[in-house]
């Protein structure tokens, strides 16, 4: 197992390198950090020359990338062009805020999705199952920014205008003067988390339902049932355990994707996370920040995929990822197939 993890981490290095290089190329093709001042009347040419030299704008792209990379691997993530602060400072706090959002979403979604998925599968074709299915399709088909703005309009603006109550917030992490107040924090987190949960719960509950159904149809379940094992025991001890394996895998993979998706939600709710930092930096062509973000996001995806594989290996005793026992199972995505394991 350890060797496997090490190998996967090694493979991640070129992935991160290429990802940052691609982004570097794109940023240097799009962004002129000086675009704004170049088109202002009365800009001083001396200042432009000064900044060009400072940001190495006249050097070839590859050379600039090498500069950046050299510093980056030594832990010097550079200084933001726009804010003149160390990128590590900017990204550090924002990363914590994003993880707070993503983490809460994942924990809550897992909880809700498991519950909904299991009940849907056990009570297949019940009113609850149909309602859950309907909700899932709704979640799949709703653009998340639209849902977020709808939540703001109904649960914040409308509540305030009609009843003069403020249960939730539109802007930021805390109300000014309430910093550190947990309740206030939760009120600010509620809507962004709800937006993110719309899609995760829709997808994961559906997924859990399907894998449960598969397991419930398996021979050994039928056998157990024939032997007179109580239904609740079958569900808890036999079916759930096996259905959980693919579920955990999917959750791990999707969590990696979530960090990229959080960009939109953070912008709409002015949440001081990585996504907001990234977009602001993008608008300012502040590439040290954009690159650090890319590297982080890529590493996060790779780690989550790796986590999926590791969890899969632990949960499923037949799979020993470290030995080349499962050649077709290099990618966790193919591990998505619900497997039937004898208890």
């Amino acid at each position, binding site marked *: 197992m350890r060797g496997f993890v090490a190998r996967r981490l090694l493979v991640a290095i070129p992935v991160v390198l290429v990802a940052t290089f691609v982004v570097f190329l794109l940023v240097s093709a799009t962004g002129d950090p000086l675009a704004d001042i*170049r088109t*202002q009347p009365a800009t001083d040419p001396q200042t432009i020359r000064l900044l060009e030299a400072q940001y190495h704008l006249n050097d070839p792209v590859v050379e600039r990338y090498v500069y950046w990379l050299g510093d980056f691997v030594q832990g010097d993530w550079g200084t933001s062009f726009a804010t003149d602060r160390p990128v590590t400072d900017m990204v550090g706090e924002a990363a914590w805020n994003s993880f707070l959002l993503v983490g809460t979403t994942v924990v809550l979604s897992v909880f809700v999705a498991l519950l909904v998925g299991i009940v849907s599968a056990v009570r297949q074709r019940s009113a609850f199952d149909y309602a859950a299915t309907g909700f899932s399709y709704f979640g799949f088909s709703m653009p998340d920014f639209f849902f977020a703005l709808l939540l703001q309009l109904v649960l914040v603006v409308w509540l305030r205008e009609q009843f003069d109550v*403020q249960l939730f917030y539109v802007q930021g992490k805390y109300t000014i003067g309430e910093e550190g107040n947990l309740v206030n924090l939760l009120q600010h987190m509620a809507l962004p988390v709800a937006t993110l949960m719309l899609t995760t719960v829709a997808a994961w509950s559906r997924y859990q339902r399907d894998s449960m159904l598969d397991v419930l149809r398996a021979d050994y379940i039928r056998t157990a049932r024939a032997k007179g094992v109580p239904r609740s025991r079958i569900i808890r001890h036999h079916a759930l355990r096996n259905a959980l394996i693919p579920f955990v895998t999917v959750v791990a993979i999707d969590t990696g994707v979530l960090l990229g998706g959080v960009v939109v939600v953070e912008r709409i709710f002015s949440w001081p996370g990585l996504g907001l930092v990234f977009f602001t930096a993008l608008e300012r062509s502040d590439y040290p920040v954009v690159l650090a973000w890319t590297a982080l996001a890529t590493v996060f995806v790779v780690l989550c995929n790796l986590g999926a594989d590791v969890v899969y290996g632990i949960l499923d005793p037949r799979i020993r990822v470290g030995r080349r026992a499962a050649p077709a199972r290099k990618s966790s995505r193919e591990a998505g197939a619900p497997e039937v394991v004898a208890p």
Partner: protein
Amino acid sequence: MGRKAWVVAAMASLVAASLGGSAAAAVGKGSSPAGLITIGAEEFPPVLNNFSSEGNGQWTGMVVGPALARGYKLMPDFTYQPWIFDKDCAVVTPIDTVGNPPFTVRCTLRPDAVWSDGVPLTADDFKFTFDTIMNPDNDIVSRLGYDKITAFNVVSPTEFQMVFAEPFAPFRDLWAGTSTTVLPKHVLEGTNFNKVWNSCICDPKTKKPISSGPMMVESFKPDQQVTLVPNPNYWGTKATVSKVVFVPVPDSNAEVNAFRAGEVDIIYPQNQFGLRKKIEAVDGAHYTSSLGPQWEHFDMLSTVKGLDDIEVRTAIATAMPRQQIVDRLVKDANDDAVVLDNVMWMANQQQYEPNWSIYPASGDVAAANSILDAAGWTTGSDGIRAKDGVKLSFTLGTTPGNQARELSQQIIQEQMKKLGIEFTIKNSSDILWKKMTGFDYQTIIFAWVGSPDPYGNNSIWLSTSIPEACPPKQAKNGSCDSSGQNYTRTNVPAVDQLLNEADREIDVATRTALLNEADRQLAVNAVTVIPLFQKPTQLGYRGTVTGVRDNPTVDGFTWNIEEWAQT
């Protein structure tokens, strides 16, 4: 099993906490505590140093403006009101009138002006500011005007004189506006100006905030929060609000929602349709809009085949549906919006003369057609006019994401079809730098930001300000000559002469006349930049705040922060 129980317990406590919170907040109604005014900022200042390339955005100016006084305050009507100066600076009549006399301006300061730490604000601070601006190692966006000063003499703590090699009429502009605040010599001397005030306006040794205005910057969290508190030692009218906080709201829809929910008390958004209606619908909220110095215009590159014929440009100007654009796109925000008929002065300035009204505001298609007929442009089978193999078919670009501009383009495109001129809309985000600076465009819509005095915009018109053609590659890596902004290649000798003369003319009336004459010349003999309208500002503030007044100049709506109060 234990783990499961833990998860369940965690969930339960989360749910309980949020429910409890809801109950608590329902009582508190979530509005700002007394004395606190929250402002939603669309573009959060990245740094506080308002001289630098990154800090010269309007929001930085509005944030630090109340903390750093200027010689003059820019008033909403575009006039200069002495602030640190005790009266208007005066031109010292030269004794030696033979030859080319040096031009000297004398400014005198209020003796009671002090920094928040008690140190008097003196002429030395002005001198220090001038030296800082002229230091070539400093990242200073504009040195325009300062570079004409040949000697800066501190006469006494309350008086300094600026000597120019030749008469320089717009001297007031040097000490007005939020990008030329006066710097405290006693705390900044010997520091690296590029670093020292990026994240605070403070004494770098003690880290305590320093201010010469009604407020001081108490704290700054980049991209998250700026807090202003009153300066107890302010020498003018003291502020009554106890705290003003700026928070970011980058998404315009969310910005309005935050305002409606009372999470922010003041918003100052970019052009947004339907905004006024929403703000006015909020109980007790106020909406104001004024016509600012940012003016939208339609530019034609005068060296493009077809556009190099001034008759074509005149026909386009004649048919330009400017009134329709204003009615449709600007009146939504501001009832007073008018078609702008001058490229030197704004419609709400005293000096304004409607020189471009020679072109009918609503566009005269018939007149435009006859101009083109007379010039020999004949309509082909495809409905597009052509002459000698040159077709009147052009691209029309702007920056993406600006709804008003995108809609203007479509109104123009439809109108010009009636002339037999085809416009293809081609927008891209690099249009203002790669395309425009590389002369890789044909027509374009964007905005220039004017200052109360038009001299800053000379570089748009002077033939000496035509940048050398910059090939796209070079434009990309920024190694182009950036000495001018005459991107339409406007070249009218009479205009050059009038503008240069105006810069040296001290007499206000004569100078105004010269600039208006230059404007008339541009309208008749250049027709490269057609003025469309002034961009309206949009300011919304909740009924809990009083005394807020918009200021369309660069000083922005925080210009009178000391008059704000909370009810």
